[in-house]
């Protein structure tokens, strides 16, 4: 008994020292987190209560008036809904086409699967701003897309894909969907490869065809991971900035203006007068809270899906 106790003590001691070391190793990360994440978040709450250009020492406390002004600005709400439009456009592309690609490229019999995976992944590692600039040329009036449409007789006049409010948002969605398709394909591939092959073998013995195997094995098993992928995509697409900034700069006439470009316009540039960092911070907080709510909601559904999937597996 005594021996057991002393053993316990040794473990407890070791555990304590382990915990101490854990904390010591975490200090640099914690410090970086405090300086580069927590501090900017809290300071933006403070900035949001100021009338301040972000450049001068003169700051005027204006209370909640920046928030009220943001809430009253129809162009903020237009940007707000555009962010959601973008999300609703991009997320299904990433989830559905990403999954289809992953299923096809997961087939071991497919020759050159690795080459195709690399090809689909290439746009992911290309900088968004470069993609944006190249797409301006590709989708431009003299670009290859219009040349093909004109030569096939689909249209009589070149379509300004990024300069026409009717087509600008859909063009940005399609390009962004294509650009990040590769990373979603990789997520789905990882999910597919986590399924034990014995299940498929057993299903084969039971006489399942490939559609039935997807319906009853693959799909239920990858759905919990799919929920995580969806969550990442929802939050990521609501925060979109670079591709919109380079392709349309939020235009024409705010038709692709998302909250990030709206904030940028007030925080860093203004056609007449100085930037308004206080107002931009208020808009940022407003939208940040929305993303948190959306994130929590998505997370709630993710947990539900996971629980359901565990139940169905049992």
């Amino acid at each position, binding site marked *: 008994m005594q021996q057991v106790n002393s053993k316990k003590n040794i473990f407890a001691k070791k555990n304590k020292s382990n915990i101490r070391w854990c904390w010591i190793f975490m200090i640099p990360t914690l410090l970086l987190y405090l300086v580069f994440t927590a501090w900017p978040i809290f300071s933006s709450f403070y900035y949001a209560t100021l009338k301040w*250009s*972000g*450049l*001068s*020492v*003169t700051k005027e406390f204006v209370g909640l008036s920046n928030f009220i002004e943001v809430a009253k*600005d129809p*162009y903020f709400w237009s940007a707000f809904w555009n962010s959601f439009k973008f999300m609703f456009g991009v997320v299904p592309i990433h989830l559905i086409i990403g999954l289809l690609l992953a299923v096809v490229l997961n087939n071991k019999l497919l020759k050159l699967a690795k080459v195709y995976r690399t090809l689909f992944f290439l746009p992911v590692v290309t900088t968004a701003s470069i993609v944006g600039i190249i797409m*301006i040329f590709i989708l*431009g*009036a*003299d670009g290859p897309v219009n040349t093909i449409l004109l030569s096939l007789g689909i249209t009589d*006049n*070149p*379509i*300004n894909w*990024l*300069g*026409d*409010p*009717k087509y600008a948002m859909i063009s940005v969605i399609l390009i962004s969907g294509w650009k990040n398709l590769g990373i979603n394909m990789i997520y789905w591939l990882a999910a597919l490869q986590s399924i034990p092959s014995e299940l498929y073998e057993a299903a084969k013995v039971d006489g399942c065809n490939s559609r039935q195997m997807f319906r009853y094995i693959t799909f239920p098993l990858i759905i919990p991971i799919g929920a995580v992928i969806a969550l990442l995509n929802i939050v990521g697409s609501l925060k979109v900035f670079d591709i919109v900034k380079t392709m*349309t*700069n939020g*235009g*024409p*006439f*705010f*038709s692709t203006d998302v909250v990030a470009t709206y904030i940028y*316009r007030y925080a*860093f*540039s*203004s*056609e*007449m*007068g*100085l*930037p*308004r960092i206080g107002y931009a911070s208020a808009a940022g907080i407003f939208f940040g809270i929305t993303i948190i709510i959306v994130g929590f909601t998505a997370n709630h559904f993710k947990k539900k899906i996971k629980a359901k999937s565990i139940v169905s597996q049992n």
Partner: protein
Amino acid sequence: MKKLISILLVTLMIFTLAGCGSKDSDNNDKPANKEDGTTKKITLKVMDWSDSSKTQKEAFFEEYMKNNPNINIEYTCLTMDQYKNTVLSAINSGDAPDLFPLPSGMDLGTVVKEGWFTPLDGLVSDGFKDIFIDGVFKEGVNVIDGKAYSVPEVLQLPNSIIFYNKDLFEKAGLDPEQPPKTYSELRDYAKKITEAGNGDFYGIIEGGQQVNRWKTAAHDFSALGGSGMSEFSPVSLLTGESSYADKAMVETFELFKGMAEDGSYHPSTMSIRAPEARALFGAGEAAFIIQGVWCIGVWNTNNPDLDLGIASQVASDNGRTGSVAMATANAWMGVSASSEHPEEAAKLLEALYSTDYNYQKDCVSDGVFFSLVKGVNDEYLTNPLLKEFYDAATATASIAPNPKTENQATSQLFLEYNDVSPAVGDLLQGTVAGAINDIEGSLKGLSDKINQEFDRALKAANEKGANISKDDFKFDWDPMTNY
């Protein structure tokens, strides 16, 4: 052994850190001439958006560095939008270029209060201001509280002049010596040329992504109809109220909308910026472009075969009742308040205008701009297109009153005034893009918002002791004559 390795590693890290720390000071203080050890190599950073004078400016900097071996100049030329964002971030991070211009749409008085620029008095030589023509160093324009903070770049002429391609006029069966004079004529000509082009060339092109280009066109075209709008004030100089909802502005918007509906705009218009639009016009892809004098030099160099015509802004079919508001000079380049070498920066700025160097002479003879330096235009203005531009620009423009020059206290309003968004440039851009159909409604909305914000800013300025009223922004001025 482990201890020894640890000590060595720590020592190595300390030295590495020390090395990092001393790197900057080494660079800055390194003597250019190690033998005497007195001359220090200084790097001056210059940033602007004057792409049309870039070649001449780079040649000037080369010449300057040759004459001043202790000076190294790092020059960055960006587009106007890029410049604005870059310079704001640079100022924010305390790393502003030594010499930089006032970003467009900003008020010098406001940024001086923000501490961006250092006064030039005492840094430039005593006779520096005398080399310029009269009216350059005016209170409220380049002078704030009696101190000069900036130097203008060029003689300020309207930059909404209609350039046209004479060859395309001929191809469309139009007389190249008879440019359009009214709204209907411009719309009609643009339509005819587009039809003649059949997809190879179009009526008109703009740098449609640049909101400032639309703003200039809206202000200047409507000013001929008596709107009294200008760059100097958010409200009309004639009424002291926003005139965006007035007939003159509505008609201007309808002209641009009409040209868009006719399909007269080059299809790239909405997705390009001014330099690209200028290049496509130079390549003969459009017959009209509304632009400024700086284009002439670029086309002379890049498109020597371009048969260029120059015409004044067109007036409404009801006739002209006003003029484009003109000032002699605007605020432009100043010395950064955070510059470590303000004297050297000021000397470089002074040399930019000196006739000892070729910059002013080259820019005038190459057709880039009209110089503000006395005598330079008389001697070097040989380019006939530049003369034509001058005639076209001054035919429809008049010197306008500037509230800041007339009453210094009005600058307090500009400190309080928050720009209304979307502004007139956004609305015209949206109209041409087809996103706005209710022109009158959107202009009325803008007008109401501006009046509201103007009243609020006026009240806030007065609460801070400005003692100004709406009358300080309203002038008894016949817009057909100089103020």
